[in-house]
């Protein structure tokens, strides 16, 4: 296999890992943010957590694998981005830590204050994670200051520009909607109806923010010069998907509402990675300083070895993760007898 082919392949594989992560963990983040607002009673909150309880940790591994794959396949991308976005990633880690620990610890003590604290940590941690990842990705599309030595020359506030924050807000609102449609799909009775009601309200906010992001993408990124004014099929299909979400919510077809939100998220990410390719980090200092799949990658040998490893293990992982989703496909009721605490 040629070097260029392998570099392209690994760009695609890393894109797939990130997209898989947002596709799966997106509704986890949404469920986490909604937890204290939607769940009024303790067993309701437990039921909400249990919709993602068996699978959230496995979903998060997509992020770890994406990070590991970036390290292995594009060390310069990993090094520049992770050291450059230092404080943003630190806050992301804090968000993931407090959220992860809370899923495990919140029910292990009956004190209402204890549970209340951990429930809010789940919400805050999920919010932080979605906000920071959205901000980081918007900044990747917009370009960040990088010098000739692949060194990020900005700081945290460089990332907190309007477009970056709009990206963060988009991820938060879309994941809230995603979480609400997921909960409508996974819960029963009154709680399910409340999730449905909430998804309608959240839809309005998410739709407005998505449109704003689409408009500002033309201003903040080089999409017009790279792709043209017509963005092509994928972004348009992504917009169509989010338009259809409300159609399905209103007809109480929550399965389709969830699928359309998922398609919107996946296609938005596909559009993002298409815009980036073959660059992995765009330099706003000088386009010539951008990191690309060609100047940031590992050697041909390493990419070959990693391709073989991925070819063997990715299908296995997909098979058992799919199997575990299948095992826990049933709706969750707030009936105390059936709730796993």
């Amino acid at each position, binding site marked *: 296999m040629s070097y260029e082919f392998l570099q392209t392949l690994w760009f695609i594989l890393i894109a797939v890992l990130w997209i898989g992560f947002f596709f799966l963990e997106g509704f986890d983040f949404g469920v986490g943010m909604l937890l204290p607002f939607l769940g009024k009673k303790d067993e309701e909150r437990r039921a909400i957590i249990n919709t993602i309880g068996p699978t959230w940790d496995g979903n998060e591994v997509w992020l770890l694998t994406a990070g590991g794959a970036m390290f292995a396949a594009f060390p310069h991308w990993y090094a520049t981005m992770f050291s450059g976005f*230092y404080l943003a990633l630190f806050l992301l880690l804090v968000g993931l830590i407090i959220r992860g620990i809370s899923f495990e610890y919140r029910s292990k003590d009956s004190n209402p204050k204890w549970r209340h604290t951990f429930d809010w940590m789940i919400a805050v941690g999920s919010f932080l994670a979605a906000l920071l990842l959205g901000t980081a990705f918007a900044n990747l599309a917009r370009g960040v200051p990088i010098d000739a030595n692949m060194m990020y020359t900005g700081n945290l506030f460089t990332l907190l520009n309007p477009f970056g924050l709009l990206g963060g807000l988009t991820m938060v609102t879309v994941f809230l909607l995603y979480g609400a449609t997921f909960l409508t799909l996974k819960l029963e009775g009154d709680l399910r109806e409340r999730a449905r009601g909430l998804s309608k309200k959240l839809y309005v906010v998410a739709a407005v923010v998505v449109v704003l992001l689409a408009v500002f993408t033309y201003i903040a990124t080089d999409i017009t010069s790279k792709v043209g004014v017509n963005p092509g099929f994928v972004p348009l299909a992504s917009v169509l998907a989010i338009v259809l979400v409300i159609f399905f919510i209103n007809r109480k077809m929550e399965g389709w509402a969830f699928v359309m939100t998922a398609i919107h998220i996946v296609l938005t990410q596909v559009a993002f990675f298409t815009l980036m390719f073959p660059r992995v980090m765009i330099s706003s200092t000088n386009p010539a300083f951008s990191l690309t799949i060609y100047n940031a990658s590992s050697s041909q040998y390493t990419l070959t070895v990693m391709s073989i490893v991925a070819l063997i293990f990715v299908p296995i992982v997909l098979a058992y993760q799919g199997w575990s989703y299948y095992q826990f496909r049933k709706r969750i009721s707030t009936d105390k007898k059936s709730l796993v605490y």
Partner: protein
Amino acid sequence: MDPIILSRWQFGLTTVYHFLFVPLTLGLSWFVAYFQTRFYQTRDETYRKSAKFWGKLFLINFAIGVVTGIVQEFQFGMNWSEYSRYVGDIFGAPLAIEALMAFFLESTFLGVWIFGEGKIPEKMHLASIWLVAIGSNLSALWILLANGWMQHPVGYVINEINGRAELVDFFALISNPKGWLFFWHTVAAGLATASFFVIGISAYHIVRKQNVDLFKRSFLTATIVGLIASTLVFFGGHTNGQFMFETQPMKFSAIEAHWETSAPAEFSILTIGDLTGKQEVWSLRTDAIGIPGVLSFLACNNFDCEVRGVYDIQAEYEATYGPGDYIPLMVVTYWTFRFMMTIGLLMMLLSFLFLLATRGKYENAKWMKWVPWVIVLPYIANASGWILTEMGRQPWIVQGLLKVEDAVSPNLTTVDLLISLIGYTVVYGALAAAMYYLMKKYAIAGPDAAMHESVDVATAAVGADD
């Protein structure tokens, strides 16, 4: 403050903290799997309760290991970007494989194990805890192969054009003896840690005559496993030391406060250095008590071989790598080794004595009430071992190839690092407090509290002792 110092402290603190929880996860997973299997085979309720009880404590511990593990993977890029650029072609591979092969396995099947009881076939539920144990220990293998490469780089060339290390032999990387020696030592240490954890908590309940049958079985299992595991730790450590003597002679001699080259070489019983740590002030060595050549024996299994001193190795390294200080902080290497080794030997002795005691009526023995304190032993030994391994490699981050001072992210400021260092300290401190509170509560509450799943009962049973 110097950003390098802060990055080093942060890496050290977060890594030692992470590794407080990892060995118990590695070892206790096998115990839970074993007890659940015994229940499956015998239908004996005591085994079911054992699996539930130790499983509950396993989960409380596991959660912290998982969330602090994410920091581990991210901070190579965050704090050590130049390291990542230099070794990414090699070091990234085992890390990515670890996620793909091990993290997915343990996370997915842990979820299945927690939520699947009664919902999936019992055989599947049993298989899932075994897969968790296999996944955890597999992840140890890959991260240790990665660390093994930092101690003993193999299968690479230095690319003259871009100046980085590049992989040329993947099989050399995955068959690196250093990585496999680490794996042997660490997996055995994980089992020994879990054994002493089980021994200590079982003793607590046996003394109080609570669930005596269950805890006597756990105690017996743990003493047998503990004896085998701590013996394996000992021989793994010894082999590791000999490999270190060949591949990292400076670390070996710094551990032993062995200043001057000699044959035969003497083992230090107690050495006091001056404040610079580079000069001996006073020392008592094994030849003074009539057994000469002990250090030679440790290094190469015979009492006469030559062991080079740190001064000679320093001179050689200066000739090879240019001027600089190549001697690690000897007060740390010397003492962490002695903590680790002494505790390791003590654990072998204790598990042997406990095993002997199980032949008699040990449940009434007066000494039993002190036994819970043995839980702290493996924790000190585990932390000492890693501090020794990593500090002993200084000033190198990759032995002989890249120095720590050249590995740090150049863009980070003191303020960045203070924010993250203080932030991690606060968050990790709070995690430790919550973990300790829950661990103590469930360990003391015993198997009955761990058995109940539903809201009301859990509230009643667990809330009762609040």
